[in-house]
């Protein structure tokens, strides 16, 4: 899952981006509203975490501009402004959630997860594809009753494939959801991770199908 964090506090930006990456998210960061607005329009994010009192362009303007330009990415406002009027205004402008600083990091993660679920049209935190189970709450993958030991990035790849089970997900799309905007990762890293996942799936390796020239899909088993 790929997130955009627009936050002017350098310390909070560092800490949040580090924690979220450790949670398996790809996190792009912006220190001001102008940069954040540009990144949000240039890339596909699952969730945008937006501060309101930003230099250059404030958070209200960023949110309004995004919605006016048709960007429908889920936005979670993260602000020290705690008045009801501020929350109403933020949600009225098109934000999907509002969290007041100071906040609990696990709560932020849970809210991001909830938004991700909404973005893929599911309500349950547990995704099931044949004998594969992805528990997004516990961030755990099980196959045939056996827990797979995955890296955060492998988990994210598996979660995305599970959310889009039955659909072909392009290599580019996978990469965009797993790596930051300025990532210098090798171009074949997706293939490497798919190989690693199949190996860890063992007997269930055929769950992940390759569509040559198109991408990968998690086979739901209902293909003709």
């Amino acid at each position, binding site marked *: 899952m790929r997130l955009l964090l627009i936050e002017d506090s350098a*310390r909070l930006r560092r800490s949040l981006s580090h*924690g979220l990456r450790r949670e398996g998210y790809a996190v792009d960061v912006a220190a*001001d509203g102008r940069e954040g607005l540009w990144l949000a329009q240039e890339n596909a994010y699952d969730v945008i975490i937006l501060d309101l009192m930003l230099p250059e362009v404030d958070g209200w303007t960023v949110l309004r501009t995004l919605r006016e330009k048709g960007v429908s990415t889920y936005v979670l406002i993260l602000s020290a402004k705690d008045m009801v009027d501020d929350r109403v205004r933020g949600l009225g402008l098109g934000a999907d959630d509002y969290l007041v600083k100071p906040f609990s990091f696990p709560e932020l993660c849970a809210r991001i997860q909830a938004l991700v679920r909404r973005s893929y049209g599911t309500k349950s935190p547990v995704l099931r594809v044949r004998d594969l189970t992805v528990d997004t709450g516990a961030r755990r993958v099980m196959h045939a009753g056996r827990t797979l030991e995955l890296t955060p990035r492998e988990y994210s790849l598996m979660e995305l494939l599970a959310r889009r089970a039955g659909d072909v997900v392009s290599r580019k799309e996978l990469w965009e959801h797993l790596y930051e905007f300025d990532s210098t990762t090798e171009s074949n890293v997706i293939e490497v991770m798919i190989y690693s996942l199949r190996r860890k799936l063992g007997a269930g390796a055929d769950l992940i199908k390759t569509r040559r020239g198109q991408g990968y899909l998690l086979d739901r088993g209902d293909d003709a």
Partner: protein
Amino acid sequence: MRSLRGRLTAWLLGGAGLLLTLGALTLARLTELNLQREFDAALEAQARSLATLTEQEHGRIWLEAADTLPELFANRDREYYQIWLADAHVIARSSSLGNGNLWRQGVAPLDRPRFADHPLPDGRAGRYFELRFVPRYEEDEQDERLGRPAPPPAGAVPPVTLVVARSRENLDHLTESLHLTLAAVSLSLLGGLAVLVRLSVAAGLAPVDRLADRLRGFDAGSLDQRLDAASTPAELAPVVEHLNGLLARLEDSFTRERTFSSNLAHELRTPLAELRTLSEVALRWPEDTAATAEALADIRAAGLQMESIVLNLLDLARCDGGLHAARPQRFAVADAVEDCWQKVEEEAAAKEISLVPEIAPGLAVTTDREKLDRILVNLFANAVAYSPAGSEVHCAATASPDGGFALAVRNPADGLTPGDLPHLFDRFWRKDTARANGHHAGLGLSLVAAFCRLLDLRIEPRLTPEGLFEIRLQAPDAAAVSGASPPGAPPPRSPGDSRRSC
């Protein structure tokens, strides 16, 4: 008496009652005197008539035309007369006396009548008129007609005493009735006045009541409202004007208080959020020692930022409470400028910002060095924070013509407008509301203003025609400046005549 209504009523009723009483008494007295005068005039007229009828001839004296007297003394039971010769022999008396005698005062001066109050023989209150006169000669009228010579002088015939008395019952009854009538009228008028005064006072004080009702309706939530000065009576206009001014100041104070509290909460929320997130993330992955070390460094920085906010607020509170005292000492301005710039040199160097000192040669001042240092450091830090990279900060200090000294810090500040100047010294005010720079909570210039007040320095922010932002400090005290260093003071450093890169 604390009630304005009661006080007005008491004064008006008391005054009106006093005037009414005095008027009634005066009227009663004047009427009484007039009645008495008329009563006496009638009594005297009767007496004079009797005197005219009293005649003498050849030593004999008698009362002529005694048969006409009943007409004169028609009211016989109330009127009396008696005539005595000089030897006290009674020559005539009214029939109403019977054989009794009238009271008389004694020997009266000749032709000098006297009035007196004395009981009548029947015991009733009476009014007496006593006249001592010489009866006229019987021939008088004939002699006058015939042009005969005048009769012998009066002294040749002994004078007689005539006393006429009349009951004063009617007069006293009339006077008493008059008193009662006046008292009744006065009391009625006083009662009417009481009602009128009450109504008048109520009508007159109605605007005060309305003002009081209006003021009772004010609370912390309605401080934006004002009293209507246009419909206020002239006497209350200064009060309403003053109250409106007070409300304006109160509203301003409440607004500042709310803004201050909100800003303070916000300023503390951000570092608190940082502390919480940093610690929670570090605790979640304790095995990541590099990230944990970085988090600890950030936690320390956030703590220092909070400490700085709290210390600045404490300084402001101490300034507000008069707990900071100025401890003047003499020092060279160039030394203070150089020392203070060193404290922001690291930040300035990072942005390649240089100081251009323009200090008058040998300028030394007497003021609190520590407080002036705090002022300069804050001004320099502000200039460095908001000046574009590679720019210059000018610091000029001169002795002013009026004997004081002037110190100005000037730097480019893009985006600052004249409308921002009145807010520069507001607590937590920043041009950019975002808290991007954790080192600046918007308290620096507030502290500068507070210390300037303490040191009696006038502070003037302005935008120069060249678009530079300048804060000018002016010390009006002539004693605070000297062109030469005092004995024992460290020699002032030479002015920075060359640009110093920091």
